[in-house]
């Protein structure tokens, strides 16, 4: 398919093969691998990495700018943040390049990605071969967390390197709606709450990422056997499996914000609606979202977080390298820096971003471990211990079918 092989790719595929044979934790210390990494570092020197990442948040943009200045100082790599309004447009770019037969010197070197977009790129052969498990800092990654190597039930095969964790968390303004202890504890209670407070809850319309995730949360809670969601969707049982979800959605629709005739565009829009007092309960995938929004003056300082004790949806977001990247070595060096304890520490600090780390605390050097423990997570952020269990993402094919069905029922 792709004939092109740079030196870096050859080095990397050797590393990947070597890495597959033994525990990932040991990979960084092996002499041969270290030599291979030196070669990658040498090749990366002077390269420019075009990093396509959602640009909707100034916090995140500033963080990426910091990464840029660090990799420039340390590795002589120029990092250019290509700010996207939708990650799918980066997928589209790589696709357009493949359609045009541009098998090398592609315009994108690194993409912030997960879930359906990753599935799409993997399926269409738009990704470089596996590299993640061979990165030196991989030894710190919390590989006991299954979402680090399995993205929405699809094995990543090392074709994307974890960057941060995500967990569905709810927010409400205690000044308007009372203490969070009294807030709903599961989907059924949420429905009852919405009936008691008509017009004060909504979710972004699918295929918005957060809106679709919310539907998955309800589905996982209501489905008779959650295990069936881990396998690809089956035409025969789709209607039966998802029926409880549609019953729930039909029941809540009349009491939704704007009676369900309109939906917020995305989660930042819900944040604004919470600030305006239009919505009382909103949700996001970043547990520190409310704290950083309070710091930025976007939300009142009376907003607090809550989650469902039975568990909420959680996943990991990644960075991936397109098959035709012109700077694969430098892209790997950046991916490796992103999972360094230093970069992950700064990312989890809500002053900069507040995104949960993908590293395992017990694998870190003691000093780094202490630094993570000392982070001030902000008044509105739940500590990791109170975030509740993680519900695993269903196979991506479920989401596609649910989005179609949602549009058929409510989109016309």
């Amino acid at each position: 398919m792709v004939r092109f092989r740079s030196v870096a790719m050859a080095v990397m595929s050797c590393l990947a093969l070597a890495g597959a044979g033994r525990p990932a934790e040991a990979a960084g210390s092996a002499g041969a691998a270290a030599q291979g990494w030196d070669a990658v570092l040498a090749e990366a020197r002077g390269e420019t990495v075009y990093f396509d990442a959602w640009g909707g948040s100034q916090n995140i943009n500033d963080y990426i700018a910091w990464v840029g200045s660090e990799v420039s100082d340390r590795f002589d790599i120029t990092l250019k943040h290509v700010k996207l309004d939708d990650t799918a447009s980066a997928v589209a770019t790589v696709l357009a390049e493949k359609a045009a037969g541009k098998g090398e010197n592609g315009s994108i070197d690194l993409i912030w990605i997960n879930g359906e977009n990753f599935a799409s790129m993997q399926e269409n052969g738009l990704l470089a071969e596996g590299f993640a498990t061979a990165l030196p800092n991989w030894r710190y990654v919390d590989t006991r967390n299954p979402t680090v190597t399995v993205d929405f039930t699809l094995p990543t095969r090392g074709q994307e390197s974890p960057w941060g964790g995500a967990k569905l968390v709810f927010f409400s303004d205690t000044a308007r709606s009372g203490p969070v202890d009294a807030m709903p504890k599961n989907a059924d209670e949420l429905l009852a709450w919405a009936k008691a407070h008509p017009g004060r809850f909504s979710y972004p319309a699918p295929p918005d990422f957060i809106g679709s995730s919310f539907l998955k949360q309800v589905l996982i809670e209501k489905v008779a056997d959650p295990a069936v969601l881990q396998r690809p969707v089956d035409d025969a049982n789709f209607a039966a499996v998802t029926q409880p979800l549609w019953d729930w959605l039909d029941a809540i629709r009349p009491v939704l914000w704007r009676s369900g005739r309109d939906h917020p565009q995305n989660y930042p829009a819900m944040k604004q609606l919470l600030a305006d007092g239009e919505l009382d309960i909103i949700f996001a995938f970043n547990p520190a979202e409310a704290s950083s929004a309070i710091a930025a003056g976007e939300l009142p300082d009376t907003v607090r977080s809550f989650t469902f004790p039975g568990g909420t949806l959680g996943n990991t977001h990644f960075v991936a390298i397109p098959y035709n990247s012109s700077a694969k070595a430098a892209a790997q060096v950046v991916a490796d820096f992103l999972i360094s304890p230093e970069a992950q520490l700064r990312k989890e600090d809500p002053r900069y971003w507040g995104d949960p780390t993908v590293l395992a605390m017990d694998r870190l050097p003691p000093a780094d471990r202490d630094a993570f423990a000392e982070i001030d997570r902000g008044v509105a952020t739940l500590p990791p211990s109170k975030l509740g269990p993680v519900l695993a993402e269903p196979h991506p094919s479920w989401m596609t079918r649910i989005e179609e069905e949602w549009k058929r029922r409510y989109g016309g």
Partner: protein
Amino acid sequence: MTKAFNWLVPALLALPVAIGLVGVVLPAFGYLPALGGAEFSLDAFRRLLAMPGLSTSVFLSLAGGLVTTAISTLGVALFLAAFHGTAAERFARRALAPLLAVPHAAAAFGLAFLIAPSGMLARLVAAPLGIARPPDLLIVGDPLGLAMMAGLIAKEMPFLLLVAFAALPQADPVRRMRLAASLGYGRMAAFLLTVWPGVYRQIRLPVLAVAAYASGVVDVALILGPSLPAPLAVRIVGWMNDADLSLRFVASAGALLQLGVTAAVLLAFVLGERLAGALRRRQTVTGNRMPRDGCARLFAMLPVGLAAGAVFLGLVALALWSFAGFWGFPDLLPRQLGLATWMRSLPAAAGPLATTFVVAIVSAGAALLLVVWLLESRRKAVRATVGRPARLPPAVAGLVYLPLIVPQIAFLFGLQVAIISLGLTPSLLLLSAVHLVFVAPYVALALADPWFALDPRYEQIAASLGHGTAATLVRVRLPILTRAVLTALAIGFATSVGQYLPTLLIGAGRLPTITTEAVALAAGGNRRVIGAYALLQTLLPLLAFTLSGGLPRLLSGGRAGMKRP
């Protein structure tokens, strides 16, 4: 040889559209090898027609295009009829620049914040009454698309007013109004019956461009339009951007449907023109002179006044947001003001602002040269007589205006594939060249009619005095048309600044402009950042429009006959 040359410019402008369309037609009929589509079929159309709410989407696009254009045109006609030659008109000329400079998306955000249930107007009511929660009303994003149409009208009316101002002198308003007045006609009747037809003939293409744009608009529809279902163009973008790549076939089929919808809007509007013309003729033969129209004049102020007020107040609200700390409902003003947003935005915006400026000046400058060349060679080809101005032959006009009629989303993906196949890497020059495709038609729109309407006897006199073609162009035609030329240049400049999809796709994200940055940040929904970027986005076009309004006065020194506005 010259004849072939005359076709060169339009062909150059239309070629990218044609290439892009091929890139849409093939997938619409099932052919896109990169996605495994190797055989032709009608499958994509079947899937498209099965999309829920498709007919509503099509209806919204049709209605949006027609209503927006009709009200905008009518508003401009009424305003000019009531206020031509008055202080109100002079004020409007001065106020026009900032209104035109506000990008569509920024104007839409501003309007949304004015009319939303938690917006400025609701706060004016809620704050004194002590209402703590906004009402649960579907105002922004209403199912009929009224908010969307209002947003479009607010932005299109200033544009049509601008081209109408440029066309007015060629319609000989002073003498015609004088004649009509001497026959006893009221001011409005006189203008509408004698001057407006001459103005409208010149601005007809911009009006049709507005219709095409409104029927395929994406950004304004996203912000103000209904979402369940959304107008067709918004849904096409959604399919185009879906992680499920097979929806690209549906998007391509949808793009062809959009093409049909836009064509239907244009056709319906042309029929509407006929109808309006017939009504005017009937009105004329009744002999009713409508001498007392004071009341009507007040009413005629409404459309333009409301539009201008909405854009202006919306911009003020956004400006306020850019300095705001926490600003909750129902506070009329933010609790704290600060520079935090600007301190973070400005350093990041400097590079994109420079890129925006360079690309806009290069593409607008090149467009002006091409268009002047095109128009002048056309004018030479047909010996125009007074009263029957030359026009671009329909075929040439069709090619030049193709990029305005064909919705961008319909052909940009195909164009992107073609550019990558040619091995071209993103550069300022390439981006300027692609912008040129969208800028040139607007420059041509703004310039064609004034160019052809200029009394040819000026040049005949110049020729009889022994001046050559070039000297006549530089010393007679261009000076007389300074205002029209600069207006065209400013429109071209602003058009380039506003380009989002082409910049993103062709620049491959490597050449961020202030507009791509603004749209990316708008996805974050933070009104402070949106406000700051809306102002930054307005800055460059504002400069261009202010200069185009002020320069003619400076340049016309020593030419007494050109002093009139």
